């Protein structure tokens, strides 16, 4: 598996650390209520198809990246810098 870092270019997967679902970029507001926070902290989808994860290019530039990939075909469709995601 190869991931194209927006800064460094195409790199081997071993340079990246898997962080988890990109839900971390969609943190609810403090008063969003228990259901929203329960969902944010505990509940994850397990999709067969397109998914969005956070990875860190830890053995490279150190950037956190959002990877759009497909769990069925293993295709990596898009990679963007987490720093550029508007929250």
């Amino acid at each position, binding site marked *: 598996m190869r991931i194209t870092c927006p*800064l*460094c270019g195409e790199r081997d997967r071993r*340079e990246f650390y898997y962080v988890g679902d990109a839900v971390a970029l969609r943190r609810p507001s403090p008063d969003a209520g228990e259901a929203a926070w329960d969902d944010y902290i505990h509940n994850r989808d397990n999709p067969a198809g397109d998914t969005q994860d956070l990875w860190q290019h*830890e*053995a*490279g*530039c150190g*950037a956190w990246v959002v990877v759009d990939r497909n769990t069925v075909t293993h295709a990596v469709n898009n990679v963007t810098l987490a*720093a550029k995601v508007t929250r």
Partner: protein
Amino acid sequence: MVKLIEKTPCAGLLPRSIGLMTLAEDAYPAMTSIAPYQGQSRQVSAALKSTFGVGFPSPNRSLLSDRVRITWIGQGAAMICGEAPPTLTGAAVTDQSDAWAVVRLTGKGAEDVLARLVPVDLRRPQFRSNHTARTLLGHMHVSITRIDAKTFEIMAMRSMAQTLVHELSQAMENVAARG
């Protein structure tokens, strides 16, 4: 005060010549990392340019002036090698002198040596002089910069100096053995 003996990271380990290649230490007198704060990169780059003649490098590039080499070392960060920078207001400035082992691998076959250890294509058409990469050498995080057609500069953390020399020497021996 006690007189302390200063030792470079690769003291006693280098230089080594194997086959047509040489691995030598290139200890800079000063190394300083700079990371401009949000929205300050332009101002920091201008300050560097007025002092050293070169500004903040773009990703994957290293800039050389007659006084310093400024190498991009990651997202929003660069290393000033050679001289300490002036007081910079808009950036996190960290003195990293003595914290890095810096070696130069030179000679015919240097690309083949790195091809055995590094998961990035460092051959010339795509990796030219003053191109730089943050990547792995074995399992070590390193910064690799091409100095010229036959020379690479490799920076690793000082605590990894012996491993760095071991890995490179082993690969140099293996490449040299192939003739």
